[in-house]
């Protein structure tokens, strides 16, 4: 049924730390790796080694340059996948019931055997989280690795989404955002986690942690230093001087 549940028992989702993400795309690769060989149709590529390669990805990392009014520009790497919205517009537009939001944990999924590939759910998503697979003709989206997180055949430390498991910078966190005591909820509260495009009214479960304020790179005003570390970086030459220096160099050349 494509009507949304009144509320879900849990709200499983991701918290993405824009402060620590280094833009390595490891989450993109591990996501594609896991999801192309697990649940549902594979994530196909078209002309992967040709002139115009493209393919289906459930997670993509953008990079943005942010220029403050004063000071140097910052580069922010910005991973984006399904935000498993509470008020998911992609679910209600689905004419066949293939798209649904789970009552037990709030994960938004697609039942691929019911999907007619009309693409309307991708139209309804403001985040670009859904991509039609060209080879299969069905809609693909992040499953929050539903086939990992409950998978008792995996060691316990692997029972989290592939992107979270692989992130070398620990910029991705997985947990229950309905529970105010969970580690992810506390992280959101502590760091001021935000919703993307709140005006769209989707009420995303996934939260983004904004970059923390940067250290002052310039030295104190009027000090003439270009860097706070400058005093520690002054060249220190302990070699000989005068005649001994000349002798040292000449002997080196022989």
């Amino acid at each position, binding site marked *: 049924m494509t009507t949304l549940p009144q509320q879900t028992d849990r709200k499983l989702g991701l918290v993405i730390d824009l402060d620590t993400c280094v833009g390595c795309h490891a989450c993109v690769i591990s996501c594609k790796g896991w999801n192309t060989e697990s649940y549902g149709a594979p994530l196909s590529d078209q002309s992967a080694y040709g002139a115009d390669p493209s393919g289906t990805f459930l997670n993509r990392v953008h990079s943005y340059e942010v220029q403050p009014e004063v000071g140097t520009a910052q580069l922010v790497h910005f991973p984006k996948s399904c935000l498993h919205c509470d008020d998911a517009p992609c679910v209600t*537009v689905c004419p066949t019931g*293939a798209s649904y939001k789970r009552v037990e944990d709030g994960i938004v999924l697609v039942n691929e055997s019911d999907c007619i590939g009309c693409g309307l759910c991708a139209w*309804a998503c403001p985040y670009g989280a859904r*991509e039609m697979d060209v080879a299969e003709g069905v809609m693909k989206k992040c499953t929050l690795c539903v086939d990992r997180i409950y998978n008792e055949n995996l060691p316990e430390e692997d029972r989290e989404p592939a992107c979270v498991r692989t992130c070398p910078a620990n910029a991705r966190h997985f947990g229950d955002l309905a529970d105010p005591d969970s580690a992810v909820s506390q992280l959101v509260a502590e760091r001021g986690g935000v919703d993307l495009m709140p005006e769209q009214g989707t009420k995303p479960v996934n939260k983004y942690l904004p970059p923390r304020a940067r250290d002052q790179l310039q030295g104190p005003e009027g000090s003439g230093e270009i860097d706070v570390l400058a005093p520690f970086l002054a060249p220190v030459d302990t070699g000989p001087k005068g005649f001994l220096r000349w002798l040292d160099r000449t002997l080196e050349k022989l």
Partner: protein
Amino acid sequence: MHPAPSVILFSSLSGLGFGLLAWLGIGLPAVTGWVAFVFFALAYLLAVGGLIASMFHLGHPERALKAFTQWRSSWLSREAWASVAALLVMAAYGAGLVFFDARWWPLGVIGAVLSLLTVLTTSMIYTQMKTVPRWHSPWTPTNFLSLSIAGGALLAGQVNWAMLLIAIAGAVQIATWWRGDRALAESGTDMASATQLGHIGAVRAFEPPHTGSNYLLREFVYQIGRKHAAKLRVIAIVLMVLLPLVLLLSPVFHHLAAAVAVLCHAAGVLTARWLFFAEAEHVVGIYYGKR
């Protein structure tokens, strides 16, 4: 948005077809026998032809029947029900006119309402998209319905009604464009809200996720139409409104002029509908720095 030919053909042709069915339903023109057969055949060709064209953009058309299940939430599902109901009721009504020389007027009125309801559900599929601010407005259903009713009047040979309604549809079309051009800016969705980085400074897309293209860019970030949008709008209004009006007003009006007026109008509607998709800015383009 990518202007898929199947969807443009569907929404334009079936709009005209259901518009004609609505006029036939209220008995304008009051035809029976063979003449009624020709009118109904034309209406069904347009309406059903459009519906079949829309099947071509599905990834799995063989599962299309499942689209009848989610009428509680989905406008596409409601459209499926409304179109089938309208076609069935109008088929019974048309059979009365063609074979029994009988006008079962309650059926006709119900069929007319269902026909316009189908056009409304089609337009609501686009109107509900908050992600496309240009579409998310009462102007979208007004635009679709006014064109359908006006085109239907033209096809039904209701010359006086057609002239008035085509002029109204033209005015609605211009108002829709005027409002649509401001919609994205007024929606409040921009780079700052998309990235939530606006409090630090001005945000610029530095690097896309991949060097190649993808489904999202092909489907939602279509930009070819923009360059010629102004010219195409003029062409659309001339074909859709001005030429049919001139032909309908001309003193030498006869069937050939009417046929030319219909073809001009249909070509104009197709042009306007192409622009409806090509000019629509989906907010996901913001993430790619393309808005």
